[in-house]
């Protein structure tokens, strides 16, 4: 579904990603872990199409298409969704109507009919229950006055409504208390399917107790320094990230 090859990315004058390789197949859950500043969020944002990053080398192929040539809105329509680390407040734009506009744009792309108001309402109700979202929030402007946890749940709620093929969770777990984390994880797990892939970007292993990944990749200083199964996450939780730096340096020395 997704293939990243030797991806180099710059923000301003500084190169942040120095050659990332990653392959994600439909139905898989990949976790990308790493310390602050390792480039995790940059990778997530580049996949969603953030224009403030410059891709200087490498390629990303999504369902056979050159993803880097596709505008952010078209990526969304083709089934890519990123849950933001910091969801944006948009005063004056209602959550419901914004989501309806988004859903219809995506359905149109798939050649499906637009949902009418009633069907949409039913869909929204169902997904709100799934994410335990207060009904009041949904009629409010996008993210305005939401608590940190409400914003994160709102992201997963949007994910549930839009049903993407590839979902990227950018540190969705950061700042969530254990109850909220369980709700979010439950939401994500209920959306897992053989046609849908997840990339779970996180700093902490904790969320991976609830969303069990198929693969774990460790990002350090803009490179994937280690890949493995879910055991790797537990190892990281015990040892922290600092040993990775030494290992990388020694690996480079050997090379």
């Amino acid at each position, binding site marked *: 579904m997704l293939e990243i090859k030797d991806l180099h990315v710059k923000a301003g004058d500084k190169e942040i990603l120095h050659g990332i390789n990653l392959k994600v197949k439909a139905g898989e859950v990949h976790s990308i872990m790493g310390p602050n500043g390792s480039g995790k969020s940059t990778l997530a944002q580049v996949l969603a199409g953030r224009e403030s990053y410059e891709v200087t080398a490498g390629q990303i192929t999504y369902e056979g298409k050159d993803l880097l040539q596709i505008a952010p809105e078209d990526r969304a329509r083709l089934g890519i969704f990123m849950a933001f680390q910091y969801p944006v407040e948009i005063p004056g734009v209602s959550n419901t*109507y*914004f989501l309806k506009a988004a859903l219809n744009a995506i359905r149109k792309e798939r050649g499906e009919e637009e949902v009418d108001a009633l069907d949409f309402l039913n869909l929204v109700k169902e997904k709100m229950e799934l994410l335990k979202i207060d009904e009041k929030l949904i009629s409010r402007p996008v993210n305005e006055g939401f608590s940190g946890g409400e914003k994160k749940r709102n992201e997963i709620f949007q994910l549930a409504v839009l049903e993407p093929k590839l979902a990227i969770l950018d540190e969705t777990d950061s700042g969530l208390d254990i109850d909220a984390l369980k709700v979010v994880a439950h939401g994500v797990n209920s959306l897992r399917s053989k046609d849908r892939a997840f990339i779970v970007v996180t700093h902490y292993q904790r969320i991976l107790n609830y969303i069990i990944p198929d693969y774990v990749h460790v990002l350090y200083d803009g490179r994937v320094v280690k890949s493995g199964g879910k055991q790797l996450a537990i190892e990281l939780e015990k040892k922290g990230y600092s040993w990775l730096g030494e290992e990388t340096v020694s690996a480079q020395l050997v090379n």
Partner: protein
Amino acid sequence: MIEAVQKETDIYLSNFAQLERELADEEPAWLRRVRKAAILRYFELGFPTRKQEEWKYTEVRPIARIPFKPAQYELDGLTADKLNQLTFGNLQCPRLVFVNGHYSAELSSLEGLPDPVEVHSLAQVLKEDPDSIEPYLTRYADYENHPFIALNTAFIQDGAFVYIPKGQVLKEPIHLLYFSTAPEEAAVAYPRNLIVLEGNNQAVILESYVGLGERKYFTNLVTEIVAGENAIADHYKLQQESREAFHIATLQVHQDRSSSVRTFNVTLGGALTRNEVNVVLDGEGADCALDGLYLISGRQHVDNHTRLEHAKPHCDSREIYKGILDEKATAVFHGRIVVQPGAQKTDSKQTNNNLLLSDEALINTKPQLEIYANDVKCTHGATIGQLDQDALFYLCSRGIDKATARSLLIYAFASEVVNRIKVESVRVELDKYLFSWLPKGHLVKEAV
């Protein structure tokens, strides 16, 4: 240089001489006196220049350069049906129509007004019962210190006179529609509106100024609103003049005890617009809301000057002006709040927010507080910004195309002030205009 401007504007003196000849002795002595004093004052003041602080960012030389003749009543194929297609056209309410500043009986309809309420053309009142308006007319807008108010006063001929007696609550708005057919020859009109709420009553007044096409003309208008004790007035002004028109307007509001006035000033048209809104809170417990929206592009210039005077204690005022500027549009906001000695417990808040959609758009904003009392609450704030790139990306990342996302954010910016409009039919009309102004506005309409 000053002499040159004086010479160019001499046309107003000869226009005045001609008006005096036409009127001969048919008007009351008090009005003739005021006229003469006003034209004299205009002659002394001359057109303002940018050396004057109040006109620092607005150049009126383009108006001075054109020898405007008094506008004539000329329908030019205009019908009531055509007017119905304009803004507020489908509102079912009493409507006074003015064509090039002159009342049009054939296009107006005053049906549905309760009997004691008086709504007339000013020209008719001046002809039939001039003394009835002497206590109000020219008593509020200060022509001594303002050349354009002086000009308007010198040329008073027509406009609307609305008198709402005590106890009357009007359900429907009263719509004053000024339409410019703009004939070939550059013409100037001087609308003069006088709206009196005697007290303990309620009314909604809509003023709209509409001109089609690209013709040059000049509207120099003055509206005076007198709100008596416990009166409630909602006033909306929508300016949609032609893109080549000059529009200089003064709204003078005088409020008595416990009265409440909301005024909303929307500027969409015109090449050069100056709106002055002066409110005097002259009775305890009065409150006023002073709102505005300017939505401009091309080379349009809009200057909003507001002056809010708290003359008595325990008055509240809220002011929000919002501007959206695209291309090479320029705007000025100058909001002054004056709290007079003794006006304790004043509660006043002023905000001016601007959204610049292009690098070439320009806004000068200047809030100003003058406080001569010591137990008051006054705040003001001004912001200038661009579209939030993070919000734009957020919307796009959900599948909404860039043009729609942009329009959604622009609409959201405007809606904060639009939503303050209490009269639903007015809000719906303005929304409709916003949706038509915004690229992909029909999609925005579904999404808000």
